[in-house]
């Protein structure tokens, strides 16, 4: 059974005196299985946060179904089994991190001893041990993000929904979040991970879905979505003499000069092999060989730019 399931989900916002309608979601269908890390990708305004807000019971769908752990989104008993980190988390800034976790623990119905034990462990886990009793208003954005992760996990959820969890974190913090996400998967927790930082999605996600203008364009594992075919090979090389350079630059492909040496780009693996053999026979040195395949970024950009005649989302 899917841990998260949405079916033909639609959301139309009506704004202003003129009742101007904006279609934020145009019928998305998606299922996330138990134990997987699912990356929910899309450019700004694609409808990612709208989808998450429906799942978290903050807004109501215009039509379609949204279910978490087999029950309708917003059900209180289901919410007890879900951890959620909002985008740019805003907490009660007069509370300390420890008080925040205690409050969330109370909402989860945890007894005092469990609340204290879990809060202490989570504060250490997210690296806030030195600031546990400081008011949140004195926290940096990265520290707030860490506090947000801790509060999302205090109920030991089966499903964790993270909306832009890397936002505001430095490289060390981002790596720690990636490690945490992997740790959650090892424990069997399902992670629904919303981001537009594609490197993070590539590093942690088992499957991704790409949402553009309220429609889900692609869903699948990275290996399914990205073409395995080679796009190009880039070879950085040096030759011992001007004659050898002139000979090698006669090979088909695009030649250019770079600070580190001569560069050749070819579209075909066999041509790259032939060039490398010739280079070595001529006594030259292979400095670098880079094979370019389709990246998640290229797929994302092509999906974001693809015009499917939807206009700008206004209905």
């Amino acid at each position: 059974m899917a841990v998260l399931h949405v079916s033909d989900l639609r959301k139309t916002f009506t704004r202003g005196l003129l009742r101007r309608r904006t279609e934020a979601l145009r019928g998305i269908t998606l299922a996330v299985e138990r134990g997987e890390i699912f990356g929910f990708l899309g450019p700004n305004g694609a409808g990612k946060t709208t989808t998450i807000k429906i799942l978290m019971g903050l807004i109501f769908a215009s039509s379609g179904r949204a279910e978490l752990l087999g029950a309708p989104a917003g059900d209180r008993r289901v919410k007890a089994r879900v951890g959620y980190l909002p985008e740019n988390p805003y907490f009660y800034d007069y509370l300390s991190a420890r008080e925040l976790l205690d409050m969330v623990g109370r909402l989860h119905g945890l007894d005092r001893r469990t609340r204290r034990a879990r809060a202490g462990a989570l504060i250490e886990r997210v690296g806030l041990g030195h600031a546990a009793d400081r008011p949140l208003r004195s926290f940096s954005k990265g520290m707030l993000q860490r506090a947000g992760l801790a509060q999302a996990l205090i109920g030991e959820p089966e499903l964790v929904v993270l909306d832009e969890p890397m936002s505001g974190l430095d490289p060390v913090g981002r790596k720690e979040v990636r490690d945490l996400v992997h740790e959650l998967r090892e424990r069997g927790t399902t992670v629904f991970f919303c981001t537009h930082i594609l490197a993070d999605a590539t590093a942690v996600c088992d499957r991704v879905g790409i949402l553009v203008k309220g429609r889900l364009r692609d869903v699948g594992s990275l290996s399914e979505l990205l073409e395995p075919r080679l796009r190009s090979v880039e070879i950085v090389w040096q030759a011992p003499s001007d004659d050898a350079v002139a000979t090698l630059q006669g090979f088909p492909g695009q030649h250019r000069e770079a600070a580190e040496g001569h560069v050749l780009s070819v579209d075909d693996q066999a041509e790259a092999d032939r060039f490398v053999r010739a280079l070595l026979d001529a006594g030259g040195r292979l400095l670098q060989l880079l094979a370019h395949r389709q990246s998640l970024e290229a797929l994302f950009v092509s999906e974001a730019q693809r015009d499917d005649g939807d206009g700008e989302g206004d209905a």
Partner: protein
Amino acid sequence: MSGAIVGGGARVWAVALNTFREAVRNRVLYVLAMFAVGLMAFSLVLGELSMHEEVRVIKDLGLAGISFVGVVIALFLGVNLLSKELDRKTVYFVIPKPLQRWEFLLGKYLGQVFTLTILVGLMALILAAFVTAEGGTHGVVMVRAEVLVVVELALLTAVAMLFSSFSSPYLSAMLTAALWVIGRNRGELMAFATGKKLEGTPLGTVLEMVADMVPDFHALYISGAQLGGQVVSVHESFVSWGYVAEASAYGMLYAAVCLVVAMLLFSRRDLT
């Protein structure tokens, strides 16, 4: 069933405790409370100017100060109870937690009522100290008046919460304040509506309906006012505990209706 009630109570308590924490960490609250204490201190000066009526002046001004400051705080905190959560986006963090929206609203309300009760209690203690210092006794009559002030503030908070469940804080503050002013002068409004000039006219009927519908804040602050043709005051013939119970029941029932409507409106609201 009982487990669910206990669980629901714990969640409401968690929200109430947080609301109380927020209020007591708000410095504006202390400034306003100090204003009330300042008014009591000023009443000592005025008392000296009166002819052997020091205790009467302190009691009157002290009670008026507690009520006025309480109303300002109830209004200020009440209209912000929900709107602040929305403006600061803390609602995005708390609503996805395992609690119902109505539990959240009830917790916010009870947290504020708890804060106001503590505040009125503290101001009443200070007033009692001033009265005692002037050789008077605070007495059970004053306690009855102070209990009615707490009920008035609880009702005002519920009204503010109702308005803020569907409108902006400024509009909520204006509507709540207007309703409080009308409610405090409900007797005069009713007398005007049923007076010689308006009785039987469409305007008179409308005003009578308005007077019937607005919360009767007048019934909860009655020292120095007329009740059943007699002047009631904390100095001579004040109301009995029976009246306090009856007025409190009215105030709580009206507040409950406001809260239920606020809960219904909030339960289907998109928190965008």
